[in-house]
């Protein structure tokens, strides 16, 4: 009777279940056709790394002796099955009583024949073993046949594994949705990668463009508690190298790799059995790293190294993560621009109404002054009050002007233009006369044209010139550079759009921008000055973004501001 039992099939995919049935049937056929008394198939367990009897055929098997049979052999490093699984070679004996490898288990056994199960990478993943109560029961022909059956079983199991991977990839792909929050998807992928690749740890690092650090965003394994905190410097360690180079890394023992630093050890370094990391690519460069790590097993049968197939799977998952991160970025930008558009319309109306009210207030103020003066000379107290009222009405008007500028900044009249020409004009007219600002330039020749609004760009450059002047009240320097943006420039700026771009840089000798202010300086109403509304740099950003460009401040705090603008070149 067949006792081809298997662990509970609950939650086991259909593909795995049917492959197990096929392997059980292969074993049954082997035992019958080769005239064996009984037989079994042992597989290397992914968790423990040990050989485990998964299928049995013939008389005399119990749950207990199934477990005992191999554990004895593995403890002593002997046994025919252990030899076959470790060496990947078949073994045949016609008289077990004189065989050094044979460990007596069933009393009636005289002959034994075993063949390895070899996977697509030539690695033994288990063994098929048959035995007989007759001496010299198996010949060379039987050995060939059992090897063929072993290969068939290995192939069946490999197919099931591929189907499990296919299903995992399909599930991941189906969960890729249009959302501004990529984090749940990242968690999902970390889980899938860890379970499908048999890795104890899977971690996803996302590059923070502002700091140049790879920050742990999702993790399945020992690093899970460090999500959001742990990070690598770009280029540092093996994981940092993957992000910086855009190349994958796959190694059995990272300690032997000169790039490895052991910055974030999932396990003690000596416990790492295999390491694999692939870059997460976005539209314009590396967005992060997807990494899996296997713990080392103290088993001679277990193959720790990740395979090429494993790397293909991880790369596919990394690509999906890349898409999800780009989607999140685009969604965020969309929401942001919709919000800005709604806000802009409401603001334009408010500004108009406020302007009219302020105009009326000015009229009454004028009238009040007139009425008071009719009664006789205006007292100095009354004159002070009137002056205060006027001063404040005027400052409200100044705010309104700045505010309307901000609203108008993004309404463009586009025409092909030479950025250097606009910039030269801004520099010749926009430098405040009494600022003492020394301006130097480095303008690249033959730059592609930009589809732009010359007056808006002039406004944008003039704001940056004034910003430099304000940052150096006693006079100082401003260095302006134009060039064709490099691929690295585009990646650093997370420039979305593709195609060539013009890079415009403004460097001054002021105090620079503190790290915590680098993002906020472009927010409306953010100002470190007392005058005005703080819309200057937000207007600059509004103009740049209306041109589908990006602007960042990248200077070292304390060593002067360094603004970098990227504007897309016009299609030639």
């Amino acid at each position, binding site marked *: 009777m067949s006792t081809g039992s298997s662990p509970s099939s609950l939650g086991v995919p259909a593909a795995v279940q049917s492959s197990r049935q096929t392997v059980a049937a292969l074993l049954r056929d082997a035992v019958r056709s080769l005239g064996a008394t009984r037989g079994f198939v042992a597989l290397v367990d992914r968790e423990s790394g040990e050989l485990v009897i998964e299928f049995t055929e013939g008389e005399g098997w119990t749950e207990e002796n199934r477990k005992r049979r191999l554990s004895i052999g593995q403890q002593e490093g002997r046994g025919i099955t252990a030899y076959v699984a470790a060496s990947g070679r078949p073994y045949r004996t016609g008289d077990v009583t004189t065989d050094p490898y044979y460990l007596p288990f069933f009393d009636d056994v005289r002959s034994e024949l075993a063949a390895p199960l070899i996977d697509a990478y030539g690695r033994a993943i288990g063994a098929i073993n048959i035995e007989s109560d007759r001496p010299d029961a198996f010949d060379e022909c039987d050995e060939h046949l059992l090897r063929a059956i072993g290969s068939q079983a290995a192939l069946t199991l490999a197919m099931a594994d591929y189907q499990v991977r296919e299903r995992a990839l399909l599930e991941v792909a189906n969960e890729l949705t249009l959302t501004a929050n990529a984090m749940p998807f990242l968690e999902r992928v970390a889980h899938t990668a860890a379970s499908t690749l048999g890795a104890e740890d899977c971690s996803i690092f996302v590059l923070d463009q502002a700091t140049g650090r790879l920050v742990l965003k999702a993790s399945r394994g020992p690093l899970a508690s460090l999500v959001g905190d742990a990070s690598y410097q770009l280029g540092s360690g093996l994981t940092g190298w993957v992000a910086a180079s855009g190349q994958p890394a796959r190694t059995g023992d990272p300690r032997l790799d000169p790039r490895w630093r052991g910055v974030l050890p999932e396990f003690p370094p000596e416990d790492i059995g295999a390491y694999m990391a692939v870059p997460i690519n976005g539209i314009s460069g590396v967005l992060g790293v997807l990494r899996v790590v296997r713990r080392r097993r103290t088993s001679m049968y277990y193959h720790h190294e990740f395979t090429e197939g494993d790397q293909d799977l991880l790369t596919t998952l990394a690509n999906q993560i890349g898409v999800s991160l780009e989607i999140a970025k685009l969604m965020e930008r969309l929401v942001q621009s919709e919000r800005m558009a709604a806000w802009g319309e409401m603001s334009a109306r408010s500004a108009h109404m406020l302007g*009219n009210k302020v*105009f*009326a207030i*000015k009229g009454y103020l004028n*009238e009040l002054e007139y009425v008071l003066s009719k009664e006789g000379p205006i007292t100095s107290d009354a004159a002070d009050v009137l002056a205060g009222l006027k001063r404040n009405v*005027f400052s409200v008007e100044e705010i309104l002007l700045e505010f309307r500028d901000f609203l108008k900044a993004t309404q463009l009249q586009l025409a092909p233009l030479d950025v250097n020409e606009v910039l030269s004009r801004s520099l010749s007219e926009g430098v405040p006369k009494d600022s003492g600002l020394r301006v130097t330039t480095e303008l690249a020749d033959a730059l592609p044209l930009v589809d732009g609004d010359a007056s808006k760009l002039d406004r944008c450059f003039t704001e940056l010139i004034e910003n430099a002047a304000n940052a150096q009240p006693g006079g100082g320097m401003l260095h302006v550079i134009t060039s064709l943006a490099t691929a690295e420039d585009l990646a650093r700026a997370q420039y979305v759009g593709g195609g060539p771009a013009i890079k415009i840089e403004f460097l001054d000798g002021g105090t620079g921008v503190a790290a915590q202010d680098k993002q906020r300086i472009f927010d409306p109403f953010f100002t470190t000055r007392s005058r005005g509304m703080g819309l200057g740099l937000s207007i600059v950003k509004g103009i740049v973004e209306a041109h589908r460009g990006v602007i960042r401040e990248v200077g070292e705090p304390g060593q002067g501001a360094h603004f970098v603008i990227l504007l897309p070149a016009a299609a030639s």
Partner: protein
Amino acid sequence: MSRVLVVDDEEEVREAVRRRLEREGYQVATADSEANAIAVLKGAQPSFDVVVTDMVMESPDSGARVLMAAVSQDLFTEVIVLTAYGNVANAVECLKRGAFDYVEKNIPGVDVYDLLAIKVAQAIERRRAAVGTVRRLESLGFYGRQR
């Protein structure tokens, strides 16, 4: 006494401008929309010397339409357009069509009412000069001569 029509859809603005111009001794009427202004202009007898009109009311070029109505009623009526900041393009369009001048409502540091009073006075002066010239030409027989 010179007659001025003040057109604005904001009551507070109309009132403030009316008071200021009455102080100058003008007879001031008001209208609260482009449509009303055009109606008032058509029924005015004699016609207004100066019209002060907001640029944007029912439509972005309401001021231009008020201008056309005023000038078609009396060629010598002078029109001053009030604009919000940043709406200079529309104001320039009005100047091309014969407006006397424009005044931005919100210029920081400037008492726009005093400025407006000056402009109205200048506009009245120009009208007077133009009308005077025509009268002299008429008295010399340049106009109305039958062929």
